Every structure is written in structure tokens, then in C-alpha cells.
């Protein structure tokens, strides 16, 4: 079935079965590969996108259920007022090791900072605990979120 999805401000057409998780529609049908596949069961956060600004696990969202909601992926963060700051902080601190989880981490961090501009440790942990980093770059993730929000950091 043909769906029109609003991805990063663009209307894109995808002809997929309605039960196809948004993750696979984005990756395989639309070629938007920033959202990553890590578990398929909402346990790792690698596939995190924003749906109307809310961080969601795209591996759990049937394409048919998205409707006209605004989807934002990591590819759209360069023009997102908070997202681009988060990306800059991630680069400055060179958070990544393998980098595979980082699109998901950045999407979760951006959603956090959009709501809570100066989060404390507990708020960071609550917002980020759904995102696994297998390389365990957690020390820098915490630092980069603080840095992006203009708070002092030690790495």
C-alpha cells in the first residue's frame, strides 16, 4: 500500500505493507539509513526518531499508524535548533567509538534538551537509559549533553 510520510519536512512516498515497522520503511524503502537496527524489540534505542517531537522507537511503529505525523530522523538534525547543538557537542567531545548507537543517542538527547534545557544527571539518566551503547561511551554521552546545554563538564 502507498503511504505518504512527512520525513524531515519532506513528503515521501513509500509503497509498503502497513505493518512494516517505520524503521524498515525508512531504511530499506526510503534509503534513510541514519536510524539503526539494534534489537527490533524496543530495548536498545538505536532506531530512535522523533514523531511530532517525541522520541520513539521506530522499530515498534507500524508504518500505517504514522499518518500525517511529522517524522524527524538524525538526517534532519542539522537544521533542528537543538539537534544541531547536540551534534556539535558530540563532535567536540568525540563521543563515538563505533558510532552505531549515536544517531539514536543524539535523537534522545535532542528530545530531552528541547524539553529540559539544563538537565541534571538524574534527568539525563531517565531520558537516556533506553539507549544502549555497546561500546559504553556513557561518560562522554553525559558530558556532551551537559556541554550542549551550556553546563560545565569534566570528561
Amino acid at each position, binding site marked *: 500500500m502507498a503511504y505518504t510520510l512527512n520525513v524531515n519536512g519532506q513528503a515521501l512516498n513509500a509503497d509498503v505493507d502497513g505493518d512494516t515497522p517505520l524503521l524498515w520503511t525508512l531504511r530499506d524503502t526510503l534509503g534513510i539509513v541514519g536510524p539503526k537496527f539494534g534489537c527490533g524489540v524496543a530495548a536498545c534505542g538505536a532506531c530512535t526518531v522523533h514523531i511530532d517531537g517525541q522520541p520513539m522507537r521506530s522499530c515498534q511503529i507500524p508504518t500505517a499508524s504514522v499518518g500525517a505525523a511529522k517524522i524527524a530522523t538524525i538526517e534532519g538534525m542539522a537544521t533542528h535548533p537543538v539537534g544541531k547543538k547536540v551534534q556539535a557537542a*558530540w563532535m567536540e567531545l568525540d563521543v563515538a567509538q563505533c558510532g552505531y548507537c549515536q544517531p539514536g543517542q543524539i535523537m534522545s538527547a535532542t528530545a530531552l534538551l528541547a524539553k529540559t534545557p539544563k538537565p541534571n544527571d538524574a534527568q539525563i539518566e531517565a531520558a537516556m537509559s533506553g539507549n*544502549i551503547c555497546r561500546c559504553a561511551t*556513557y561518560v562522554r554521552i553525559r558530558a556532551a549533553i551537559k556541554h550542549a546545554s551550556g553546563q560545565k563538564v569534566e570528561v
Partner: protein
Amino acid sequence: MTFQATGANRREILTSVTAAGLTLNFALAPKAGAAAAGVGALNAYVRVAPDGIVTIVAKNPEICQGIKTSLPMMIAEELDVDWKNVRIEQADNDPKAYGRQFAGGSMATPLHWDELRKVGAVARLMLIQAAAQAWNCGPGDCTTTPGTVVNTRSGKKRTYGSLALACANIPAPDPKTVVLKDPMDYRIIGKSMPQYDTARIVTGQPLFGIDVRRPGMLYATYVKGPVFGAKVGSADLDAALAVKGVKKAFVVQGDSAAVMPTGGNIGSGLVPGVAVVADTWWAARKGRNKLKVQWAEHPTSTQSSAGFAARAKELAAGPPQRNARNDGDVEAALKGAAKTVEAAYAYPFLAHSPLEPQNCTAEYKDGKLEIWAPTQFPEPGRQLCAKTLGIKPEDITVHMTRCGGGFGRRLGNDYMVEAAWIARETGAPVKLLWSREDDIQHGFFRPGGFHFFRGGVDAAGNLSAWHDHFVSYGEGAGFASSAGMATTEFPSRFVPNYRQDVSVMPLGMPTGPMRAPGSNALAFVHQSFIDELAHAAGADPLAFQIRLLGDKPVVGEAPGAYAAGRMVGVLKAVGEMSGWASRGKLPKGEGMGVACYYSHMGYFAEVAHVAVSPVGEVKVKKVWVAADVGRQIVNPMGAINQVQGSVLEGVSHALHQQITLANGRVEQSNFTDYPLLRIHEAPAVEVKFVITDYPPTGLGEPALPPAIPAVTNAIFAATGKRVRTLPITKDMLKA
């Protein structure tokens, strides 16, 4: 990132590397030779464009260790260019041009430190030669500033970009004769450089194997028997084929034996299974869920973790199958000891679970195979595909993509040969992608193991007797892959009466090297038992370790030499950093533990500070690390990240991870029942590099092993409860 730290495999790899040397090829790689017009290729690694942009080839696989950045830094330093003008290009698998290309054993830095600096230095000399020819002067009259050759007499200058083409006619000087820079003059090495790919990573650019797309590409899943190597008994494919989008479904006969590593390979062929190929991965997965497969009975389907634990106990109660080392007289020393301790330790199987599930894209056309793979060891993958598909290795090209983590899992190329086979059967480019469940249930697992210790301290408080009956996996005199232990395992050689006995149990589950192989388990048991003996002696555990290390700077001969002096240095450093001396002031329920470990040529001492709640919940509050990896940290920013990540991985092993077997099958399937450390459990990790005058060595692994016993020793300090089995459970620690 990983190779056997102990046992035969590790030695084989080390000797073959030394024997072959590192193939330093100053000829042109095909890729370099085919460069764009005006671009001068100086050797297989370096090309210079007229505008001064320098392309440096990163020869090794990037798996999370930052090697794609740090190896080119070595070349750029000696070439004398500005880092901002450097572009890095990932090499394909090309042993003729680049020698051995692998990510393993934390060996890239020690293996390339001299060689790649020489690659840069030789290229620089060629540029100087070219300038000298143009100026009709001797090369001795020339020097360089970044990107420019300068005539020291006339003051004339030529950019590298204007000289590179002329280098085609200049013979490369003998690398043995080049003089390398004084480290005092370094502009790149030793400076913190963000990973070259960092901008691409944070913007979600396609970089990983899973992101590869080819025109007309189909997607595949591959289902294997839950018991390792089980053959397909019967398969009903109709329902799968009826799923919209499914193009093909077929049984792959494969080879049952291929599941087990043989001859130093990690996985040696194509394991039986059923492939489903579709126009999207989701359709392939739906088709797969509709398959009805009967797996043939398999001889190892009775094996279980509980059975192995019971059998290990039985074995420990009897005489060992063999003795591996026997120094002094352990029995007499135990009899004469002031204090003796007996303890049984165990650790579980672990899955590597890199966050990017195994995948590979393959295209077979006109007898030639092209492969895009996240792999840590491309050449054995190519050989495996050649052997399995019956085609010549020369007809196979392997492109290395960035790996979403490796940890040793991608040293085995099982997914590569599966993709190659499925692509040829399908007649179209195919991306094979495993599910997380496939990944957790079909690994080359970190082997579990059992240690039955007896130890004694004498009246003077010295460790005087040590006996380990090590029950591991293997057959006859051999260990399963990565399930061995060296006879020099510390504190062997430091205790006058030391005996190491071994018994093994046959295992039908494939095992293999996982980040700091061997060490990642052996550090826990040895450093914990030393801590037990320190407490038995009534000694400060850190002082006890220093005393045990003695005053000889080095014990034993290469390659098994142990620089005890370096370990003492890091122990003292970590004691200071952590405020070890004032740990008595910590509140009730909190404690500090210390552990040290030598692996992958690095000396590491770590202190953990933990709090344990009355219901047995552990919070690791902080870890301090003192590390000695020689005289030069190549990229401090990346180095600290590696150490912090390794330590947190150790904490994750301690708190969470275990794979169990029942009926020959892995019981876990995803991050829901195989949890990994999350951010709210991650302590701060403070790192200090203790600089000593030794050649620089690698950092992908050696920080991990001591993190685990530092945590468990801290738990003992906090609660008086000794953790002897991993992972830690609340039940073990309830007040």
C-alpha cells in the same frame, strides 16, 4: 581488538606476525595508481593532490577503536602535513599492498608504530628529493614545514601538491635509513584528534555494513538450528514463499562441523540453514517466521550450563586430567601456612553482541564475487568464501565497511560466507542481515570456566602457596578456542609453591576470542582470590599486591616476561588517584576494591568505589584507572574513550551478562534477557596514563580485565560478601 591472550592460538598469531614482519609496501596499490589526474601517489598509503590535500589510506578495519584515525596520524606526522589537509580513505582487503589487515589483540599500535611512521618519513624524503631536483641542489639543503618543502639556503618554497607528480620518477629511499622525528617535535601524534568519521557519524551518513545498498539488491535472512550445527531435517517453505515480497526460500545443506573453529580459524565454513530472500528485509523476516523447519537430532542437544557446573564440581573432586605447572611443593606449603583459603570461582559464557547485528552484502557476477562486510579479519573471510564456493580468491573482492562494534565477534566471517552463498544462489546482489536473536544465539562465545583454588599465606604475611584446578572446555590436551590459560598466568612465577592443574569438558558450542580474551575472565578469578588471601593475611590488599610483585623489575623471559616494576608503578598511581589510604572513612555499605592486570602488553591497575544497598543492589560510583602503555599515547582523546569504554564493559560483565545453555541451545535471545550496562549504571571513570620508556602499545582491551575484580573486591570491602560467581545477583548480596 581481540586474540587469544593465552594458549596456542595467541602464540601462533604472534609468531606469524613476527616471521612475516609487517609487509611495508612502498609500491603503488592499484587504487592509488588509478588516482585522479594531477594527483601524485607516493606509495600505497599516500596521495597528494595539486591543492595540497593529502589522502592517507587507513589499512585496518575500524571496529570502535579509532584506528582509522590513529594509524593515519602516524603517517601524517612524519610526512609533515597539516592534519586539516588530510583525508582518510578506508583500504579494501588487499594483503599485497597492506600486509595483514586485522583488528585484534590490541596489536595495531605496537605493530605499526615504527612502520607507518616510516611510510610517512619515506614519502617526505621523496618530496624533498623532487624539490632538490627542481632546484638543482642537494636534498640536504632542504627541509619541510607542514605541506611545503623549503630550501634552507635560498628560502625558496614548493608545496607538496606541486611536487607529488614528480615523485613518480624518484626511487623510494630504504626505510631502514630514514631518521624519524624527535617526539618533542610532534604536531599530530600525542594531540587529541576527533575520529575522522565523527561528522558522518553524528549526521547519520551511511558508513556501516548495514547501510550498504547496491542496485537491484535483495534482502536475506538465514535461520540456523538452535543446537549448533544441527542439520535441516525437513523444511516446508511454501508458507514463506507465499509472503508478499519473498522471492526465494531455500535450504542450504552446509556443513555441520563448520560451526566449530578449526585450525586457528574462527568458524570454518557454511553452517546448515534455511535462507529467505525478499525485496525488503521485513518481508524476508515475515517469510522466515512462516517457515516450518524440523532440525535433525544433534549430538550436543543434551548439553547445559547446569550440567557443566555439576560436572566441573565432580572433576574438581577427583584427580585432574593433567598438570600444567608445578613449582615448589604446594601441599607442604599449605600445611605450613599460617592461613589457608579455599574457594570455587565460576564465570559464564558471554555473547559479543556488537550493536550492529552481523550483516554482509554480496554480489556474484560472471564468476566473480564482490563483498561489502563489517569484518575484523577480511582475508580469512575471502579465503573462506573461496573454499566454500569453489572460486579463486583472486576473483573475490572484499570491501571493509565501518563496523558497529567488533569485540572479536567479527574475526569470524560466518556471516560473510552465508551472504556469498545466498547471493550466488539468488543470482542478485543480496544483503544478509541477522536479527538480534540470531546474533545472541549464534556467536563464538566467550567460554565460561571454573577454578577451584586453594591458597596459603605464611606467618610473615607472604603468599606462599597457590593451587588452581582449572576446569575448562576442550578435548584431550586441547582447550576450546579462548578457553585456555597460560602457565605463566599471574601469580605464577611470583609464588614459590604454585601448581596449576587442568581438566576439560567437551563442548558443542562454538567459542572464540572476545575483547581481552582469556584475561577478561582470568583477571576476575585471580585478582579476587589474591584479594581473599590479602584479607586472610590481614593486609591492605593494595600493599599485598605490591609486596607480591616483589622488587625485580622484570620476571621471566620474553615473550612471557612480566614487568613487575611497571605494575607496581600503576598500583601506586591508582592508590594516590583514588584516595585509597582514606577508604576507611567511607560510609557503611560502601567500599573500595583494587585489582591489577597485565594483558595485551599493557599494565593496568584499577580501583572501584561501590555502594551496596541492604537489598543487595550494587551501584558502582567511580572507577580510577592507572595505565602504563609505554612512552607515547598516540591520540589521547581516543585513548581515554577506549579505556573508559573497556572499564564500563567490565562493569557490565560483572553486573549483568551471562549466556546459559539448556538442551544444547542458548536460552537468551535479545537485550531483554541479555542486558547490557545502561547510562544510569555507568560510573565516572578517571584515567591516568603513567608514561614509561617502553614502546607504545594498544588500548582496545587491557583496561577491561581488572575492572571486574576491582568491583567485586570493592563489594567485599563494602559488605564482607565475596562474589565468586558472575554475574552478580542481588541474592548474593542481600544483607
